[in-house]
């Protein structure tokens, strides 16, 4: 029982992390129709910058703030120099150009900080574990990640639903040309949305850095998971990204921890140990396949937009 609770919490933690990354990805795609593979390296960069600023200042809070600013600055730099020339291009060009940026940054990170994994200590205040129920300890930092993710999700929801900027974003996702024709500086809107997405990915990287090892290529795996999330949720939909992120996070975590036990019910222990991990590793993709087979545009396709 306590194992189940722990794994659900772990699943939630992965879910909110995925949401932080997928939110930026889905917004950028929704508004600009731009597929950004380099979103994963922004997450990696966030983690590296946090490690760097921590070693310079010795304070986690300072590292967080400085890394966020630096990640934002770098994202805007990329937008200004490269990405804005790609908005009008077809998806294939966008894929290849952003793929080139991934190659560059993964190698550059190795070049600057070395190939060995780095780590960021958990801040003093949040280190250790709390007793959730008798006999169940859970690391505080993971709870902090869940809380931070949920707060960001709420803020994002409020921002998109109730502010003028959010209205423009929703309108842009619907019909960017029309928004532009109504006198909105669409380039500026693009830049704001892009910077915001970059910052969220960087934030995710910073938050996860104390738990995972910070290494080159760490953004690649998470990027694919984020793609699965936004495809399941419906590209362009924040709500869809949130639901799908939790779904994927939980399915992946629970699948990995319980697949062998569940399979043991229907087959011998030895084949279960072989088949279990294989099924667990494919589970989220199977979920995605089923969802898309039934609803080719995802669970919450934004209204008025054709895929």
């Amino acid at each position: 029982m306590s194992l189940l609770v722990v794994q659900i919490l772990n699943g939630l933690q992965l879910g909110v992390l995925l949401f932080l990354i997928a939110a930026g990805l889905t917004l950028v795609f929704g508004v600009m129709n731009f597929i950004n593979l380099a979103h994963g390296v922004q997450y990696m960069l966030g983690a590296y910058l946090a490690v760097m600023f921590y070693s310079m200042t010795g304070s986690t809070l300072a590292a967080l703030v400085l890394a966020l600013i630096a990640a934002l600055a770098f994202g805007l730099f990329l937008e200004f120099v490269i990405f804005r020339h790609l908005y009008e291009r077809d998806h294939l060009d966008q894929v290849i150009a952003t793929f080139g940026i991934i190659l560059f940054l993964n190698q550059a990170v190795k070049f600057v900080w070395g190939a060995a994994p780095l780590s960021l200590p958990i801040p003093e205040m949040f280190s250790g574990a709390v007793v959730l129920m008798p006999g169940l300890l859970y690391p505080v930092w993971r709870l902090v990640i869940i809380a931070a993710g949920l707060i960001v999700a709420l803020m994002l929801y409020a921002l998109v639903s109730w502010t003028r900027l959010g209205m423009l974003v929703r309108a842009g996702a619907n019909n960017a040309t029309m928004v532009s024709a109504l006198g909105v500086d669409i380039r500026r809107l693009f830049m704001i949305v892009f910077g915001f997405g970059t910052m969220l990915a960087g934030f995710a990287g910073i938050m996860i850095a104390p738990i995972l090892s910070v290494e080159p290529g760490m953004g690649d795996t998470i990027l694919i998971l984020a793609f699965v999330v936004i495809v399941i949720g419906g590209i362009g939909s924040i709500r869809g990204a949130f639901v799908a992120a939790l779904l994927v996070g939980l399915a992946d975590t629970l699948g990995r921890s319980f697949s062998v036990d569940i399979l043991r019910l229907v087959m011998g222990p030895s084949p279960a140990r072989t088949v279990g991990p294989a099924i667990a590793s494919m589970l989220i993709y199977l979920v995605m396949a089923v969802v898309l087979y039934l609803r080719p545009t995802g669970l919450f396709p934004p209204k008025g937009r054709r895929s």
Partner: protein
Amino acid sequence: MTAQTSSGESFVVREKLPLALLALFLLLPVLAAFGTESYLLDLFMRVMIFAIAALGLDLLVGYGALVSFGHAAFIGIGAYAVGILGSHGITEVWISLPAAVLAATIFAFLTGMVCLRTRGVYFIMITLAFGQMAYFLASSLAPYGGDDGLTIHTRTTLFGLAPFAHTRLFYYIALGCLAGCYVLCRALVVSRFGRVFRGARENATRMATLGYDIYRYQLTAYAISGALGGLAGFLLANATDFVSPAYMSWQRSGELIIMILFGGLGTLHGAIVGALAYVLLGEWLSDLTENWKMIFGPMLVLVVLLARGGLIGLATQLMPHWTRKKPEPQP
């Protein structure tokens, strides 16, 4: 280079580039004999193997506008078929080759059924995700090496003989496969099937209105493309004596797309030129510096921003007399 453009020119003039490529590949072992033979043959073997997979990809991307970002999975599945059969002592080509091709085809067919229900960017992401699925499946195959991969102790045999163990013979087998695939793809593209498939790229609604079931044509093309990937995987496993999940990584899929983009989309021989350019460029840059990807990455961005139509497109702009315009796709 469709049948329509053929009038008035001799076969040799018309097929300049493919013939030149063929001559290069045919003569290479002779030239290589003067240099470091095994190194050059290995290098060009890699070129030909990737060219086969890239041909299949070009069929989808260039002629169907279906940007598949999970193509490495087909290569990996073909390679794993060889590896897994080999680990059970089955190395006969009559079993392992069909197994490799069929496994990749079936995987393509099943995933294609889902992927092709979607369009555009959804298609890119779903093929990407299915590629990753295959990758993680291979990583979790503990009996077959898992993450570490699987060493192939015996290359594929033919009635107990070992043609794949003989480097030069293997080289020509690979060349034969490449030439065969190229001719097959050319024939496919100009066939009635190919016309419908290309028509769907231009205007899917119109083709559907004309009474064609686009989905079935695209699914067939997707499966054929997967089969070519499986063949490439079969050759790759034999060439490297090793299979690992890394063959299916999404970076590998990206590299295949880069190849066809380098060579120019929708030309077929562009896929071969692109594979050649990509492998040689990578080899050259990695000799130059360990951090070659820091050069290659920005280069890709520049190619996308500046050189549209790939290397062949660039050559067309620079030397209009030597190269001819690509035929306009038919409506």
